[in-house]
């Protein structure tokens, strides 16, 4: 067994919360620059120019890219040879979030109860997904997720007879209905298969893939490309002001499913698509 201290986990999570909110990933920045080059609408181009300027200002470390610094969503892959010492893994992650949101001057957006709606004032608890994998490493991905784009998400229990056309219609309809709300240009995460909750999780996980990466199965890689082209024909454009650059990418994740089921999920990310990872 390999021992990993909660002290290292706390520090890693804290640093990722701050880094993710101030420094946009290079893949997203490059995609935004490409979108700026390709955008045909003058208003859309001016909008992308402001978005790129914002990315630069944020890198100086005084102002996070967006005031909505998100729910802290963490994906953890823990090797079966790892032993957590000096405490508990989930408590350590939450402590990292607490410290990161305080020291990084990030907005605390989490309410203790969805009906009562009182703020927890430290942005905890985080949403944590844990997988046990082979090995002696601990991989943590930190993906702060804004509320505006998260609200534009849905799971649909389709009929097997709906087939791939059903998925296409669902994705395009979802993007069109979302319009300006998720702050386009967006990244569209799509989950197909699994169960109700597995499908939703896959749609979120799909947002973590680097922009420009393709699904390993050529069928789904082609479907991603086709959907991206269709989404960009919706005319929504940057911020919904009209244009040709509505999405930077469409990413699909799939899983086996029940003979009677055909679930699909769409999770949309705004252009401030934040995710950082660390391997301990």
């Amino acid at each position: 067994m390999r021992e990993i201290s909660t002290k290292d986990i706390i520090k890693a999570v804290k640093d990722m919360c701050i880094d993710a909110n101030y420094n946009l990933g290079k893949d997203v920045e490059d995609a935004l620059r490409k979108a700026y080059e390709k955008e045909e609408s003058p208003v859309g181009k001016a909008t992308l120019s402001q978005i790129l300027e914002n990315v630069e200002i944020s890198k100086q470390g005084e102002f996070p890219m967006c005031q909505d610094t998100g729910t802290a969503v963490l994906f953890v892959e823990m090797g079966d040879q790892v032993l957590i010492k000096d405490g508990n893994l989930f408590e350590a992650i939450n402590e990292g979030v607490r410290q990161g949101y305080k020291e990084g001057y990030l907005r605390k957006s989490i309410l203790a109860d969805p009906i009562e709606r009182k703020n927890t004032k430290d942005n905890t608890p985080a949403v944590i997904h844990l997988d046990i994998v082979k090995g002696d490493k601990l991989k943590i991905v930190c993906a702060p997720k804004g509320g505006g784009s998260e609200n534009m998400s849905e799971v649909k229990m389709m009929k097997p007879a709906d087939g791939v056309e059903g998925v296409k219609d669902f994705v395009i309809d979802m993007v069109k209905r979302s319009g300006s709300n998720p702050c386009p240009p967006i990244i569209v995460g799509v989950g197909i298969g699994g169960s109700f909750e597995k499908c939703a999780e896959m749609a979120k996980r799909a947002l973590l893939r680097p922009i420009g990466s393709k699904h390993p199965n050529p069928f789904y890689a082609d479907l991603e490309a086709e959907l991206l082209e269709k989404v960009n024909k919706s005319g929504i454009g940057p911020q919904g002001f009209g244009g040709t650059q509505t999405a930077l990418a469409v990413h699909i994740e799939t899983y086996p499913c029940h003979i009677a089921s055909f679930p699909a999920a769409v999770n949309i990310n705004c252009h401030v698509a934040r995710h950082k990872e660390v391997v301990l």
Partner: protein
Amino acid sequence: MAQKKINTPLTDEVAKDLKIGDNVLITGDIYTARDAAHKKMVELLDKGDKLPFDIKGQLIYYVGPSPARPGKVIGSAGPTTSGRMNKYAPRMLEAGSKGMIGKGEMGSGVQDALKKYTGVYFAAIGGAAALIAKSITANELVAWEELGAEAIRKYTVKDFPAIVVQDAHGGNLYQEGVKKYQKI
């Protein structure tokens, strides 16, 4: 696409001159309010009471900033979704406001009120919150501190960047702009 510099409070003449797609730089004071503050303001108007600030010609900004660092007047301060204020915005325009700043399309009731009271709805770029923060030079509490992030505050801004998205002539960039580029 015209670029225009405007100052608050806005006059009817300035509001009339603004058209959808115009890139504007706003200078002067703007007032922040979200759901809770709007609810309270409408209650005051219903009772025939005065609002906590002189709303004539003013713009209301829908915002919930991140915390300010020591020595800074504000943290990142981009717009929040305006649709939540659909119910309240016509009342503010009726009371003398010349418009609002937020993100996302506002409803048909708001569009009608913009026409009736010669108002303008501006969009700030969602997720360009650091850039916007740079244009805010002062930030003071106006009313209802107990609402925390939802209190009414006055921001003094210089060249605050925004785009006219719904104008006093019935123009709606969210609909007209999208129609122009829609191919499916």
